[in-house]
């Protein structure tokens, strides 16, 4: 190993120690004794301690001089704990700390007397941008996340109960032989729509109950039709997207059979990786172009803006998504990631993140479509063409 490289490796623990100590100090100074300040400050302090202990352990206690030293179970266990176990736990703490930052900032503002509605701290243009986000035809993901959270926490029991019922019945319906075919063909669509109905009701501040998860069965034909149309479009996009990776795999397998290429060869890996990349790109483009515009179909039917037909609901959804496909695609991806993040902690978190994301999606729809009026039923919003 060259001298500069050796210097680089040996200086890394000290660099990390400096970074973690500084991050702990910054957390405590910036976020004070709020919950996120305490969590982040402590997490970074402990990471600094872990780096130090790991350095000491690997330099003196588990020093590698022979192969046996490297493969010693004690050394492996210590490395796993110090390099992955503790850092992973502290990473979870950091994520929780970061998630609590907005709450802590509110507390800090309250402590400093920067009360809500205090016009002396007005930021020029802020009201305009907020107002623009509230214009029907446009949406603000931050606002949707906030509204979604408020909607879920207002009726936490109903939201969790509905998702729990959905998950249990979905599990039963998907795994029992024969029943799973019927479930897939007839039940899944209206059942999934029930979540959209509940999400929209929660965001609109209407009276909700756990039974709303079965609301999709009240307009069985329309929800089933919409579900199957979206499902078939997804299948078509996936079938086209999978062609490049299939083709490269076939070519690579052919070359392997003929003996001109080996399975572990870098050319083989590169060829398959290239095919996978093209497949991924096609999948992203295909979903953004042909699936994202119809994201709001279920909400349109739940909102009774579909004029009685699933096809009309598709048209209305595409109209709402017009000019915002990539923003909606990014939002859906982010919401899915957050919902999946709830799988940590033995899937319990999913009972919170799933209804939260469902309501955030409903809020995006509500922002785009505009509110329903009491007398005429709906206000049809034109898609926003310019930010002003």
């Amino acid at each position, binding site marked *: 190993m060259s001298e500069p*490289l050796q210097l*680089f490796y040996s200086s*890394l623990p000290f*660099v*990390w120690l400096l*970074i*973690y100590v*500084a*991050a702990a100090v*910054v*957390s405590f100074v*910036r*976020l004070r004794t709020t919950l996120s300040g305490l969590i*982040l400050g402590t997490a970074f302090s402990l990471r600094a301690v872990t780096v130090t202990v790991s350095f000491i352990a690997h330099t003196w206690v588990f020093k590698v001089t022979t192969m046996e030293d*490297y*493969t*010693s*179970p004690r050394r*492996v266990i210590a*490395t*796993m704990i110090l*390099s*992955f176990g503790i850092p*992973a736990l502290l*990473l*979870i703490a*950091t*994520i929780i700390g*970061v*998630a609590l*930052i*907005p709450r802590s*900032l*509110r507390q*800090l*503002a*309250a402590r400093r007397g*920067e009360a*809500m*509605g*205090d016009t002396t*701290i*007005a*930021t020029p243009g*802020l*009201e305009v*941008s907020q107002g623009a986000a509230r214009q029907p035809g446009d949406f*603000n*993901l*931050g606002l949707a*996340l906030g509204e979604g959270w408020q909607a879920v926490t207002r009726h936490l029991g109903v939201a969790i109960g509905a998702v729990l019922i959905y998950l249990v019945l979905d599990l039963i319906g998907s795994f029992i032989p024969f029943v799973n075919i019927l479930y897939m063909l007839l039940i899944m669509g209206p059942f999934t729509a029930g979540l959209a109905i509940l999400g929209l009701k929660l965001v609109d501040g209407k009276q909700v109950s756990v039974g709303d998860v079965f609301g999709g069965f009240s307009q069985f034909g329309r929800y089933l039709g919409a579900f199957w149309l979206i499902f078939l479009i997804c299948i078509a996009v996936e079938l086209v997207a999978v062609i490049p990776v299939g083709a490269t795999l076939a070519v690579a397998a052919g070359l392997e059979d003929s003996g001109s290429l080996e399975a*572990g060869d*870098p050319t083989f*890996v590169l060829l398959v990786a290239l095919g996978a990349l093209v497949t991924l790109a096609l999948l992203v483009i295909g979903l953004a172009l042909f699936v994202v515009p119809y994201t709001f179909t279920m909400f349109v039917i739940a909102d009774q803006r579909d004029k009685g037909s699933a096809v009309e609901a598709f048209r209305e959804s595409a109209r709402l998504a017009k000019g915002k496909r990539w923003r909606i695609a990014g939002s859906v991806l*982010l919401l899915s*990631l*957050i919902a*999946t*993040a709830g799988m*940590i902690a033995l899937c319990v978190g999913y009972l919170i993140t799933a209804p939260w994301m469902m309501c955030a999606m409903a809020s995006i729809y509500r922002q785009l479509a505009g509110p329903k009026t009491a007398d005429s039923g709906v206000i049809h919003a034109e898609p926003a063409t310019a930010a002003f």
Partner: protein
Amino acid sequence: MTFEEIGNLYSIGNIVVMILTLVGFAVTVAVALLLRPANRGAWILAGAFLLDFLSSVALLVMNLAQDRWSEWASAREILQVASLLTEVVAGLGLLLGLALIAPARKQLVQREAPHV
């Protein structure tokens, strides 16, 4: 323990860290969106998590391809240094993001204030 067993254990550790950094990225983006428009610090934090994720992907690739890349020692070394450097940059991003995030509180309360 054999080299293969050790490699597998480290790969599992890498995957766990990789998933966590991706979750961290998603959460930070959500926070950044909640703090709009004064979200510079939060966006830097999100970038830091993303860099951390990329670095753990690179380390995982190296772990998984250890046997096959035995002939490409120099390439592996470059990838390792690059991923470690990325990790350091991510750490600095985390630091900078935290330092810049507190001023967002004014915009946050103003945004939630009732419009007069």
